[in-house]
Structure formats: C-alpha cells, structure tokens
C-alpha cells in the first residue's frame, strides 16, 4: 500500500527535519487511513529518531538538533500513543525511574534517554533534576521499577552516585541501575556497582 508507505515516510522525515507540523499532519493521516498506531510509531517516528541518532553519532548534528527532533517525535507520539492496542501484560515493557542527581540541574541528557524509553514502550517515572537521594529510593519502593537511571552532567555531582547505588541495592538487590552523563564512564559504573552504563541515548535504548 503505497499510501501507507508515504505516510510512514512523512512521519520519519518530519522527525529528521524537526518539523512538528509535518509530523502532526502525518499522524492524523495515519489514523484516518487506519494505519496501526504501533506501526506508525515504530516504522515512522522511531525510524526518524534512529536516523537522528545515526547523524548524532557521526557528529553531523548536535544536541540542539536532537532536542528539536525529540519535540517533533513527541508531537506525533502524543497523537498516536492513545491509539496503540494494549498488550496482554498491561501494555508496558517495564517501569523505569529516571532522574538527575541532587546538585545537578542539567537534564538534557536525561530527557533524551527518557525519549528512547518512551518510544520503546516503557513506563517512565521521571523525577526531574536536582533529585535528592531519598526520592530515588522512595520512588523505587512505590513503583517497584526494574530499572533506575541516574544522570549527572558534572564531575562535581556524579560523585553522589555511588551512595545512591549502594542505598538502592540495599533496599532491593534485584533492581538494575544504569548511569550516564558527560563525566561518567564505564569504569566508574562498574566500580560503583551500577549494572549498566550508557555512553549516549542510542545505547541506553538498547539496554
């Protein structure tokens, strides 16, 4: 069906070209044409974001462009997601808690990683930025989330991470913890007892 193909292409291009209006139009067209919402999200919007991720890795585009693409993607996701058929298990792949550690107010990296989890079908509990240690622990206990993602953009705040990891593991040894952010690296992640480290949002999505 060439029409479906065109609409999916338009969704993808809208994201790649940071064009919110194009994505909104294509999303409405997709629904009007009876295209499966999940297909529109994954073969349209996510395909666009994957291209953006590829261009980012090649350093052809940078963070501002990625944020604009994310806006366009969310413009489509907001329209399409309510039409996704619920899956048997309640429609979610799992629960994720995310937040930027206390003392750090830089949430751009976290927001981009959040987007990857959103499109991958996770339910994201976003604690925002400058999040005190206790809030991570409380939210984990309340939601019984499988995964907690900690972000820090500055050396001066990433040093709070080991304490949060230790306390989270103490309360729930089964919880998986992933850390990310400019100053963090794989060595520190394993040294501090984290289960995963994501160099960038692409890799976080694969986790």
């Amino acid at each position: 069906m060439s029409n479906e193909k065109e609409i999916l292409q338009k969704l993808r291009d809208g994201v790649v070209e940071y064009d919110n209006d194009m994505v909104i139009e294509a999303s409405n067209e997709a629904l009007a044409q009876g295209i499966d919402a999940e297909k529109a999200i994954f073969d349209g919007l996510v395909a666009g974001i994957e291209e953006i991720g590829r261009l980012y890795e090649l350093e052809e585009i940078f963070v501002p462009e990625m944020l604009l693409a994310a806006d366009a993607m969310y413009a489509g996701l907001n329209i399409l997601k309510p039409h996704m058929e619920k899956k048997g298990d309640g429609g979610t792949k799992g629960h994720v808690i995310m937040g930027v550690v206390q003392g750090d107010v830089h949430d751009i990296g976290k927001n981009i990683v959040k987007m990857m989890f959103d499109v991958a079908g996770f339910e994201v509990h976003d604690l925002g930025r400058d999040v005190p240690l206790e809030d991570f622990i409380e939210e984990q206990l309340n939601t019984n989330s499988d995964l907690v993602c900690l972000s820090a953009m500055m050396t001066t705040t990433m040093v709070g991470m080991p304490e949060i990891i230790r306390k989270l593991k103490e309360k729930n040894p089964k919880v998986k913890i992933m850390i990310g952010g400019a100053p963090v690296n794989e060595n520190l992640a394993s040294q501090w007892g984290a289960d995963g480290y994501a160099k960038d949002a692409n890799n976080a999505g694969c986790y």
Partner: protein
Amino acid sequence: MNAKERVINQLLGKEVDRPACYSGMGNVTTAGLEQFGYKFARVHGDAKMMADTAASSHKLFGFECAIVPYDLCLEAEAIGCVMNPYEQVDQLLYPTIKEKVCHSEDEMETFPIPDDVASRGRVPLVCEAIRLLQADIGSEVAIGTYVLGPFTLAGQLMDLNDLFKLSFKSPAKVNAMLDRLSEATIKIARALRDAGADYICIREMGATTDVLSPKVFQKVIFPHLKKVRDALADVPTILHICGGTNKIMNILKDVGCNAISVETKNDLAKSREDIGYEPLLFGNVDAYNILVTAAPEDVEKAVLAALEGSCDSIWPSCDIWPTAPIENLKAMTETVKKYGAEKWVRKNR
C-alpha cells in the same frame, strides 16, 4: 622567581623559568575546609571563609595560585536569580540556581538586567575575598578569579533545553540575549579586576562541542567571548572550555585570550597542529579520574603527559573536587616543579 611572577609573567608573554601549576577554576579542598572547621555550604557567603580556604591550597600543597569563588552562581545571582547553597544537605554539593529570571522565549530580550549588577548579590563579597587574599599571600602567589561565558550564564537564567534549541533555530534571538549578558559579565569581571584579581578565567563550559556544533559555536558563542575578552584587555584572561574542543581550537585562538585551557578530552598534539605552538595552552590533568581516585604515581604520569603534550602550565581540567587527597595534589605540584623546566615543549623545540 616566585609563583606569582611565574604565573603573571607567563600570561604576559615574558620569560619564565618553568610551567606553573595552578588553575583558573575552583581550588578548595576538604582538607582546607577541615583545617578551619568550615562547612562548604557556608563558605560561599563569607569573604573571610572564602579567602582562608582559597589560601589553604597554596599552603597545603604548593598550588601557585588562590582562586575565588568556588561556585558558578555569582553572575546569575547578581542578575536576580535565587541560589541554593544546599545548607541542609550532608553531602558536599556545589550551589545551583533554583529560580530563574527568564521564563520564556519572549522574555529573552526583556528580562531586566540591573545596571549596578557589579554591586549586587555576592559580587562585593568575592571582591572582598580577593582583597583579603592579596593581603595574605598576594606577594607570593597569583590571585585569580573566574567569570562564566555569556552562553553558560544564559543557561542559568533560562531553561537550558530551550536555549539549546533556539541557538540552532533562532540564533539572532540568542545573540541578542548574549550581547546583553556579556555587558553584565564585563561589569562583574571589571569589579573583580579592580579588587585586585591578577588574572581572570572565562569559563564557557556550557558550550562544548560535545553538545554544540562548531558552526553554532562560531555564530553564537564566539562573538560574545570576543567582546568580553576585548573589554578586559588590561587584565590577563584565560579561556576555558570543557569537553571536546579539538574542532574549535582555531575559534578559541581567535578569541584572543592570553591563554587557552582545555580538559582531558583534548588531543594536545592535534591542537598544536591546528593553532601552532605560539599560543599558551594550559591543561589537562583529569580532575576526578586522576586527582581524586588515582594514586600519586598516576598523577605524576598524567602531569608528565600534559607537559610532553605541550601544556605551558599545568591546570586541573575542571574545579578541583574537594575530596582529592592532598598526596595527589602534592604529586601534581611537585612533578611540575621537578620536571617542568626539563619537559617544557616550548623550550625544547
């Protein structure tokens, strides 16, 4: 030649005996705080506490400077933001801005910047700390300070996500805001200079090429850095950019500061290919993975690598994280003292 002469003469392009070991970013240590029984969260609001602890880095491990302040909120606070010093938190945290002054794209050109910004917030307090430092150890070591680059400052006054998007989408709008902010930065920097600062580091840490394209850097970041630098012609300035900087070394050179400081991610050899051996290049000892968590032997290796990589003075790649062990910091200053002259690439070429 004492530390002060070494630092200042080198910045002014005069002959010196060896690279110095100092910084243009925060240099407070936990050891320094403990010596006086000061709590980190309180130091930011007290000139004497600030000066005491800044001087302790020279006294404890031979750092060839003292720097105030330690936080990055000075300008934003003077413009009208509210700072959170985290007084109620046990762990050591740097202050952040909790209330911004620019709440939307429309306000970027209209939010007020007080004319007397240089006498607001803690600017007078930091000036006082500089005067206290000059009186205490100013005859021996250089007394430095820093200001934020206009883009980094803008990121504290408005939502950073919006600022990034606009710098790509509507550069003219961002440029208009940064032009206004650079005036404020210049006023504050001049007040710090008048208080006796021997040099000023301009920290444009929000604009690394890890997040912004070299094109945006040229168009939106560079003009304002240049404006700030040109207005401060009568005091030595050092430009510090975090993260990957190799793609913009030529732009950094064009800003025209007395020296450029880069961090660990910078490939020094590649930098010299781009800008040549004439500009002073400072760096680039990892402030956490080396100075805090490694052993003194590793510190020595890192310092030697920076010297061999053509750094003209050895700077930590960011603020010294306060818990850095004194043995490591001593290893840093001692290695520069011992091998600096011999390994100095500028002298060996």
